[in-house]
C-alpha cells in the first residue's frame, strides 16, 4: 500500500503539470470553447447532481458493464470453440472478418432496427464491439497452444472438452487478459457512440447535448469524467487480473 501511494504520487506529476500549463496559458483567453481547468472544476458541482448520476451516469455504467461482460464472455467462449477446431476456423474466419470490419457506428442502425432505441440497443452495441476483438484474440491463442503441452494433455488421456477448458484456455491466459484490457477502451468508445446516436441518455448524449446547447463547460466536465472513468477502469483491471490469475504474474516474476 505504501509503494502504491508512492507510485501514485509519481504518476500524478505529469498530469498535474499539464493541467497547470493549461490553466496558465488560457487564464486570459476569451475563447468560449476552451475554458480553464478552474472554470471546468467550478462547473462540476452544477453537473454532478444526484439526478444526473441516476440518469446519465447510471445508464452509461449499465451500458458499459453489461455490454463488456456479455461481449467478452461470448467472445472468449466462441473463440475457444473456434480456436480448438480447424474446420470451424476455416468456415467462420471470412464471416467474422466481414462483420468485424464494419465499424461499430455503422452497426448501430442495424441493431436499432432490431432492438429499438433503448438500453438494450446500447448494451448490444457495446457487446458486439467487445466480442470481436475477444473472439480474434482467443481464437488465435487457443489455436496456437504449445504442441508439447497438448501432447501432455493427450498422454494424460484428456478428451477434447477437458483439453479445451483445463489446458488450452489456462495456457491462453496472457493473451486473453491483454485482449480484455484492450477491450475496456473499445467498450467505452462504443458506449459513448451508442449514446450519441439518438438515445438521448448517458454520458455520450450528455456531452453532445451540452455542446449543441452551448454549455461548453458542461461538455468539458463530461469529457473529463469519461477520461477519469477510463483511468479508473484500467487501474481496476490491473488490480483484478492479478487476483484472477495470480500464477500467471508470479510465474513471470511480475508480482
Amino acid at each position, binding site marked *: 500500500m505504501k509503494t502504491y501511494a508512492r507510485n501514485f504520487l509519481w504518476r500524478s506529476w505529469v498530469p498535474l503539470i499539464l493541467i497547470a500549463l493549461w490553466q496558465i496559458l488560457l487564464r486570459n483567453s476569451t475563447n468560449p470553447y476552451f475554458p480553464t481547468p478552474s472554470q471546468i472544476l467550478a462547473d462540476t458541482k452544477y453537473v454532478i447532481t444526484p439526478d444526473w448520476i441516476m440518469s446519465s451516469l447510471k445508464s452509461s455504467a449499465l451500458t458499459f458493464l453489461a455490454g463488456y461482460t456479455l461481449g467478452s464472455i461470448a467472445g472468449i467462449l466462441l473463440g475457444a470453440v473456434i480456436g480448438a477446431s480447424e474446420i470451424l476456423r476455416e468456415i467462420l474466419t471470412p464471416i467474422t472478418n466481414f462483420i468485424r470490419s464494419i465499424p461499430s457506428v455503422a452497426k448501430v442502425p442495424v441493431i436499432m432496427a432490431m432492438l429499438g432505441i433503448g438500453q438494450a440497443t446500447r448494451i448490444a452495441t457495446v457487446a458486439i464491439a467487445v466480442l470481436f476483438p475477444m473472439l480474434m484474440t482467443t481464437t488465435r491463442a487457443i489455436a496456437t497452444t504449445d504442441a*508439447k503441452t497438448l*501432447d501432455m494433455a493427450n*498422454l494424460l*488421456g*484428456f*478428451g477434447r472438452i477437458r483439453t479445451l477448458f483445463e489446458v488450452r484456455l*489456462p495456457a491462453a*491466459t496472457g493473451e486473453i487478459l491483454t485482449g480484455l484490457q484492450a477491450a475496456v477502451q473499445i467498450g467505452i468508445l462504443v458506449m459513448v457512440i451508442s449514446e450519441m446516436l439518438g438515445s438521448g441518455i448517458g454520458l455520450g448524449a450528455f456531452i453532445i447535448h451540452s455542446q449543441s446547447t452551448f454549455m461548453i463547460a458542461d461538455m468539458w466536465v463530461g469529457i473529463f469524467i469519461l477520461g477519469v472513468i477510463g483511468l479508473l477502469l484500467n487501474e481496476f483491471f490491473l488490480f483484478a487480473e492479478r487476483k484472477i490469475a495470480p*500464477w500467471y504474474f508470479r510465474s513471470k516474476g511480475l508480482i
Partner: protein
Amino acid sequence: MAITRGFKISVRKVSKDFGVNSKVLSNISFDVASGEIVAICGLSGVGKSTLLRIVSGLIAPTKGDVRIDGKVITKPSSEMGFVTQDYSRSLFPWLNVGKNVALPFKGHDISKSERNLRVQEALASVGLEGKSDAYPWQLSGGMQQRVAIARALIMKPRLLILDEPFASVDAYVRLELEDLVADLVEKNQVTTIIVTHDIDEAIYLADRVIALSDSPAKVTMELVIKLQRPRTQMITRSDPKFLKLRETLYKGLRGANV
C-alpha cells in the same frame, strides 16, 4: 530377469513417413521384456522422439505396429507414465505441484482422500515432501523434473516412457536423477523405455541399448548391458566393462569409420 508387473512391448516393422520425401523411421523392430529397461540411443534428430510418440500411441506408424502385451496400441493409456525433456511445458504453471501430480487421476474414479494420500506418497518417493502447495516455477529445474517423475508414476503404470528426461538439467542433478529413476523403476517393477542421446546414460541405466542410425532411422545395434545392479555412479562408470561397452556403442552409433 524376475517376472514383474511390467508390460511386454513388441515393436514390429515400424516405419514412419511425414510426406513422400521425409522418411523418419524405417522398418524398426525390437522387443522389450516385462520389467526390462531399454535405452534407445541415437544422435540428435535421428527420429528417437518420433519412435517414442508411436510407442506411446500419440501418432500412428505409417507401416507396422506396436503391441503392448499383444494388443496393438492406438492411443495413450493410463497404464503408461511419461516424463518428457521439457518440464516447463509438461507441468502446467497454473496448477500447484500437488495438482500437477494428481492430473492423471482426472476421469478416474478415485476418492479424494486416496488421491491426496497417493500424491503425498508420490512426492515423498521423489524427495519432495511438503512441496505440494508450491508452484512448479518456484522450484529448480531438477525439482520440477522430480515432480514430472512423481506424476508419471502415480497411476502405478506398467510402462514408463522417458524422453530425454535429464537433458534440461545440469550435470550434477542429472546424475542424481539417473539414480532416482533407477531406484524407482526397480521398486515399481515397471517396464521402461528411455530415449537419450547420451551414451553413458544409456549404458548406466539400461539392461539393453538399442542404437538408431540416421535418416531414415534403422536399428543398427542391440547391446545387452550385463553390468551388476545396483549400479553406482562412481563404481559402475569406472568399471572396465562399462568403458568397453561405451566404446562399442560409440562405434555402433558413428558407423565403422571411427
